[in-house]
């Protein structure tokens, strides 16, 4: 089950890599693979057992898979230290503003849709 689902995921990524090399150099192969799988699921209308097992087990360990790339920051410690305040300031400010704005906008749009449905 797990192996068959994994094969599907790998197949999608390999197809994505081929498409990336042939037609879409600006999109990463795995992202094209994800779009391919999404379209496939849309056409099929359901998630098969093998795919469901494979994707949930892989996504469960996503944080673990992300540890090695995150460790890569040790190679850039001095770059970050140089721009420390610019980086942290930009991150915090943009987060606060966009978070508040997203919530406010969504709330307004939902209220409007509900009012329209009541009329």
């Amino acid at each position: 089950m797990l192996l068959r689902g994994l094969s599907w995921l790998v197949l999608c990524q390999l197809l994505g890599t081929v498409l990336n090399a042939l037609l879409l150099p600006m999109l990463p192969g795995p992202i094209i693979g994800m779009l391919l799988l999404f379209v496939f699921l849309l056409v099929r209308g359901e998630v098969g057992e093998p795919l469901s097992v494979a994707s949930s087990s892989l996504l469960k360990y996503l944080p673990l898979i992300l540890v090695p790339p995150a460790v890569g920051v040790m190679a850039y410690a001095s770059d970050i230290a140089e721009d420390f305040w610019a980086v942290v300031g930009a991150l915090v400010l943009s987060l606060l503003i966009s978070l508040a704005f997203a919530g406010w906008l969504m709330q307004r749009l939902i209220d409007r849709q509900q009012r329209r449905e009541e009329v």
Partner: protein
Amino acid sequence: MSLEWHNAWQALTHHPLFGIGITLGAYQLAMAAYERTRWVFLQPVLVSMLTVIGILLICGLGFTEYKRSVEALTLLLGPATVALAVPLFLNLRRIRQLFWPILITLIVAGTLATALGAGLAWLFGAEQLMLKSMAPKSVTSPIAMLVADQIGGIAALAAVFVMITGVIGAIVGPSVLRLCRVHHPAAVGLALGISAHAVGTARALQESDECGAFAALAMSLMGVITAVLLPLVFVLLL
């Protein structure tokens, strides 16, 4: 006698499995600590990263050697990204009910989050390399790292910015939203998912199931849109 100890130490730290060993160990410790305390600061990726860096520094190993040793693990990042299509598909029904509000919020607020991050960093005088690594900070790390790599930034830096953004968003997010009188679970979830990705989604799940589902939805859509559009925008602008 001391010579043999030294040799054994060298054999241990330079073994091809050493990197995987410390990564697995650090991750399990971090998960246990997080599950016991449920403290938002103890994000498993962050804690494991710090632990692994600490061990590498103590053993005097460089990132290049570590990277070579954990290649088997890193290789799984691609299939894991592909697997994100499954939760996205499973959430389709919820998207249909609130289709326009979701789409409009996602595009407007998602653009704002990305442009504001890079714009402010530019205003504060950060370097090009930093800007490119910071642009995808609002999406979940695998996508952010892929995108940063694609537009000429550094994947590892992107991962760190993503983590900082997520952790701060999860800590202050719900109170900020309450201050702005945002109370619909869909709105709270969407805001957390758009701006604080996976960490925000984990926080939204603590609020309610509905809130969590919308956060997961916002996170995956934001990831796909960023992955598709951001490299295009950079190609057109530069």
